[in-house]
Every structure is written in C-alpha cells, then in structure tokens.
C-alpha cells in the first residue's frame, strides 16, 4: 500500500475538512469555553458527527458501523486537531470502539448503537498517577459472587464526568508492573459507589477524577478475558495513541499555517516579518518536522490497519514524533506572533493548550521514546 491517502481517503479528507471548518472551527471551542460548559463539548455536534458517519467508523459493518481503519479515523482526527474541535471522538469512537470490537456480541449490542447514533459517550479510566503508566495499574477488582467489586481511584478520565460508560482497567491478579492480571471492565456511570469529580483542563476539555467505592459489576462487564485485559487494552491504547498523534499533527499543522499566514501579513521595521531569513529558516525547519511527524503517523495507522507486527514500535514513534514536532509548532507559533500571541483574544494560544493536553494523553513523547528504546532492546 503506498504511503499516502488513496482516492477514497482523499475524498473523506475533503468532506471532513469542509465539515469541521463550517461546523466546528476554533470559534466553536471558544464559545464552549466561554460558556463554561461542564461537558466540555457540544452534544449537538456529537450528533452531527454521527450523521456524518464518523462515530461508527471503526465499528464493523455487522455492528452497524463503517468498518474503516485507523487511517480513516486519523483523517477525522487531523481535522479535529486543526480546528481544535472539542468532541468525544478520540475516546469514544477510536479508543473505546476499538476496545468494544474485542468484546462479546451482547456488550457490543449494548453500547455500539448508542455510540454510532451519537448518543453515547465513553470515558477511559486508566491512569492512577500523574503520568501514564499502564503496566503500573494497581486498582483492585476482587471476585465478588458472580462478578467483581472495584475499589480505587482513577484520574485524567477525559469526559469522565459526562460519560455514559467507563472502560476501567483494574487488577484481578498479578501486581503493579506486570501485564498479566489486568482486566478491562465496562462500568456504567450510574453504578452505585462510582463518583466522578470533573476538572477543567488547560485546553478547556473536562477530565474527571473517578472514585470506585465497592462498585459491583457482573461478569458480563468484562471486556475480553479476565486477567488478559492487557491484550485488549493494548489494542485500545494503540488506537488511542495513534489517534492522539494524528490529532496532534492537525494541531501542529493548524498552528503552523496560522503562523505562516501571520508572517506574511505582519510588518515590522518596514518589512513583512516573513521576509526575515532567521524566521524563514525556523519556519522551514518546523515544516520539515511536521512532515516527518505526519509521515510517521500515517505509517503507524497503516501498520495497525494491516495488523503488522511492527505496528507497536511505529505507534510509539508516531506519538513521540508528533509530540516533539507539534510542541515546536505551538512554541514557534506563540513566539512568532509576539505580544498578540500571548493574548486570550487571539487563537494561537488555544493550539498551545490543546497540544499540552494531547501530549499527556496516552503517554507523552518521553514515555514513547523510552518505549522505543525498550522495544529496540536497550
């Protein structure tokens, strides 16, 4: 498969791009931020995502979805990133659906229709400390009657306050540091003993600290196999990581384009500042970095879709490289805008904020670079 978008994908990209530009540009984010909306996204827009067919892209046709892959999801995410669109697409339709695709038919029937219809939102309850360390999960799920009793705390559960269901990673065996003994559960948000405390993030998204106080779930709530949650979780995380990387590429490209536009307009010392060679070289370097990141992300998407055994390495490369490149894009963006870039009134700061949040999501560039070293054997 050539490493570029084929004709269908290019058409999809055009229509997604048009949609986001019209329905959910940066002004949409600003509006929701200024409204102090407690969900952090628009349910109306989420419905529109459904009408466009985005919500169920990754669900199988058998389950009512489109049976598409990570390349297609990445196309949506890049535009989401470019427009800083707030939505539960990454958590629900990319990571969440990827996990549910590994679940039994009953669970799929329970959750996928609502997701596909743009009515259901999922949250991912993975992190237990300030950094992403999935193998270190310690939260307990003890056998209790026919099911399990969950106790513990999760944090950085994006959209955790508005989610209808949380995918919760907990330990049914083993101990922190091991991959065996982890189990994934689908926990409904109104389960007794579950409480979520939502906090606004720097990018205006909402993320919750979630407390599990003897939350009882039946054996049917298990996604995949008991103690073997690592395998489902890995699939879910790879989709989420690649998706976050794609969104970051959109964020970086959006910030870069806005900055290049500014460089062509803004005058100082009687010259358009884009004519200053020092800024030209830095911008050209930034462009190169973004192109490398974009290539790595597309490669990771393709390898994941092909089920290639090299995919995990490339997923980490993509998340790490997108992290480094987009961080550069937003830093250069604010700096090259000068004073105006520091004002809330101007949009470039939003890009810096979204980049910051995405960089932490599913492991930051440091986490993934370290994984690359580990996977490479050193």
């Amino acid at each position, binding site marked *: 498969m050539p490493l570029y978008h084929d004709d269908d994908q290019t058409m999809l990209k055009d229509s997604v791009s048009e949609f986001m530009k019209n329905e959910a540009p940066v002004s949409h984010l600003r509006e929701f931020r200024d409204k102090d909306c407690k969900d952090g996204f628009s349910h109306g827009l989420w419905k529109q995502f459904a009408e466009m067919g985005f919500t169920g892209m990754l669900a199988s046709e058998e389950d009512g979805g489109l049976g598409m892959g990570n390349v297609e999801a990445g196309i949506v995410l890049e535009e989401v990133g470019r427009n800083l669109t707030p939505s539960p697409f990454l958590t629900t339709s990319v990571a969440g659906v990827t996990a549910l695709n590994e679940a039994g038919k009953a669970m799929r029937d329970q959750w996928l229709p609502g997701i596909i219809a743009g009515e259901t939102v999922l949250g991912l309850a993975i992190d237990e400390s300030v*950094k*992403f360390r999935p193998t270190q999960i310690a939260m307990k799920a003890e056998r209790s009657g026919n099911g399990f009793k969950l106790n513990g705390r999760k944090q950085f559960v994006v959209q955790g306050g508005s989610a209808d269901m949380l995918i919760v990673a907990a330990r049914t065996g083993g101990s922190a540091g091991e991959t065996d003994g982890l189990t994934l559960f689908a926990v409904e948000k109104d389960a007794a003993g579950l409480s979520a405390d939502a*906090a*606004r993030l*720097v*990018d205006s998204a909402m993320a919750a600290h979630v407390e599990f106080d003897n939350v009882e779930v039946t054996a049917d709530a298990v996604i995949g196999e008991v103690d073997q949650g690592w395998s489902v979780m890995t699939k879910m995380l790879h989709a989420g990581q690649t998706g976050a990387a794609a969104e970051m590429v959109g964020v970086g490209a959006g910030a870069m384009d806005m900055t290049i536009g500014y460089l062509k307009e803004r005058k100082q010392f009687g010259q358009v500042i884009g004519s200053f060679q020092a800024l030209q070289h830095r911008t050209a370097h930034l462009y190169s970095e973004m192109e490398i990141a974009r290539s790595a992300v597309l490669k990771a998407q393709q390898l994941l879709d092909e089920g290639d055994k090299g995919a995990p390495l490339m997923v980490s490369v993509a998340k790490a490289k997108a992290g480094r490149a987009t961080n550069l894009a937003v830093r250069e963006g604010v*700096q090259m805008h*000068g004073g105006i870039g520091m004002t809330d009134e101007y949009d470039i700061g939003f890009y810096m904020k979204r980049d*910051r*949040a995405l960089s932490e999501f599913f492991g930051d560039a440091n986490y993934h670079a370290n994984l690359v070293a580990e996977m490479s054997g050193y």
Partner: protein
Amino acid sequence: MSDLEAFRADTRAWLEENCPPEMREPVRDEDDVYWGGRNASFKNDAQKAWFEACVAKGYTVAEWPKEYGGAGLSPAEGKILKQEMGRIKARPPLSSFGIWMLGPALLDFGTEEQKLKYLNEIARGEIRWCQGYSEPGSGSDLVSLQTFGEDKGDHWVVNGSKIWTSYADKADWIFCLVRTDKSDKYRGITFMLFDMASEGVSTKPILLISGSSPFCETFFDDVKVPKDQFIGEINRGWDVAKYLLGHEREMISNMGGGDGSGSLGKAVKPMLGEDAMGRLDEPMLRAQLAELDVEALAFKAMAERFMDELKARKNHPATPNMMKYVGTELNKRRHELVMAAGGSEALEWESEATGGGAKPRGWLRTKANSIEGGTSEVMLNVISKRILELPDA
C-alpha cells in the same frame, strides 16, 4: 575589622531588629507585595512596619543618594545589604516601577528639581508609576510608535494608545513615549510624565493565555500634559528610552534558572518516584532535567559574573541583551519541564488541588518572557550587530 565587615555587622543587627518575622516568609500572592501609591494599603502591620523602617533608613532605594530618599550606599555596601536580606529571606519592602525603571532614568537624565521631587516620592512609595512604551502594532519596532502629542504652547494634547502597560489600572502616574515630531522616526519622540488621573486617560485590562494579568491597554483621548513634564530633551526621548531598555534588560536578564529556584529534578522526584537504581523513575525526563540543571547552574554563574562585571563596568554594553535572551529562553524551558513532570495534574486549570492551575498558568506566562522587553529575535539581532559586529544586509 574592615569598613565593609563593620557595615555587614551593622546591617545584620539592623535587619534583625527591623525586619519582622512575617516579612521573612516567601511571597505567596500579589497581596504580599507592597507597591505603594496613592491608593495603597498595607496587608498587615508587619508589612507596614517593615516598609516604614526601610523608608526611614533609605533602604527602599539603598544605593540612591540620601537627598533623593536613598541611603547612599556604595555598590559594595549595596551588595552586602542584598546578601544579608537574602540570608534572612527578607521581602523587598517596596516593589515599584519607579525604583526599577523611572528612577535610573531620572538619575541620569533628570534635572535636579525633578530628581528631588520624583525620586523622593518614589523612595517613600507615594506615587506608583507605570510605563507607556509599546503600542498596538509597534511590537519590536518600538520607534514606529504613533501616540502623538500636539504642541499647544504651554502643554501638549496627547492622543493615542499604549499596550502592555503593567498595572496601568493601579498606577498614579505614567512615564510615556510620545511622538512630538512626525518627520523624524528616532528624533521625534519625547519622554513624558503625566498623571493617570488626567482627563482623557482610560485603561482596559488584557486577558492573557495564562489568564488575567496586570497588563492593560491604555487610551489617551485629548490628554493635556504640561510642557515641563518630560525627561531629557524634547524630541530626544528615544535616548532616555534606550537607556531604560538596557536597564530593564539588565533586570530581566537575571531571571530564569539563576533565581536560586534549585533543582527541578530534585523537587519532582518525590511525586514521580524512583527506579531500582534510585533514579527519578522517568528516564527521558530525568535526562532533560539533568541538562536543565546544567544550564541553570551555568546560567547562574553567568548572572553572577554579569553582575560583578557590571559593578566594575567591565561589561560590553550590549551584554544585558544576551542575558535577557538566555535567561528567558531558559525559564521557558524550565516551565516546559515543570509541565512534563506535573503530568495530567498540571493540566488542571481551575481545580483547588492545583492552586487554581498555578502550573499551567505559570507555564503559559513564561511564553511572554521572550517577547516582553524585547523579543529573543531582537536580542539576537543586537548581539550579532553590537557584540559580534556582523554586517547589515
């Protein structure tokens, strides 16, 4: 005992007696800083006592001459006072753009009459000043400023607007660059002083990406300024401004890593944990923190050298530009790592647990460091032209 040793002993005793314990605590919020001015009030008795003791001793502006409200200390004595205050972590008794910015300009360019009036007011914290340099659109090209003062015989009528005027909404007076001759870019600017209570002055706070800020936009709508309220010469205000910009950069140049803020790696280790080898349990971050510590400690040495050379007048006059460039870039880098170490918790923008998002707001605020007071790009231009003497294009 040498004179300086005696001075140190005296200073130590004086501080012991006059600096209340509450004034030796770190500054926690804006309220802990005393800015003076017409509308100022003290947070508590300790703040008031410390301020008044310093005013009486001349220690709000210790190195200024006594007749202007200072204590007339020599640079060596001034350094000792600073060291001794640092030792007991004494707070500055008075924070003031009058002290930091206007004062040095007055000392160099003011008439004797101006010095006696304004410097004493500043020293006693009676008048709070703000600075009116930048304008919307002027940016790095400061001399392109458009605010115009029309000559009306015994006064000017000033129209225009300024941006990035810190605390303009709280200041009593402004020192301000105003164009008084449109035919000459550099030699057509006057360094004016006027009362912010004058008719036609209004201010509007600026919201930053980090949240609310002391910065304002300030508007002048037919503001009358008497013709004797300027420093230096009419139409030669750029000389004063340039001098002050250099001075400002000297001050700014000490920030960022050289501020004794200590090892970030050490600070974050308890939160992030350690690995089997006792190292910070984030190997990539640890490497970045190690590089940061190297940079920060090396920068601290440069800041010390810079101050020592400054006192001995051994610096190249453009050195503050380099210090400003390096210091601000380092501070941005430090805060990127604060965010990386803080992880998802450092993303929280308003939560109580995070002090209302102190980390992300602090991080975003640092992004202005390399813009305000001269961008990094302008600093690099200055270094390459004035220090390295590379030719113009």
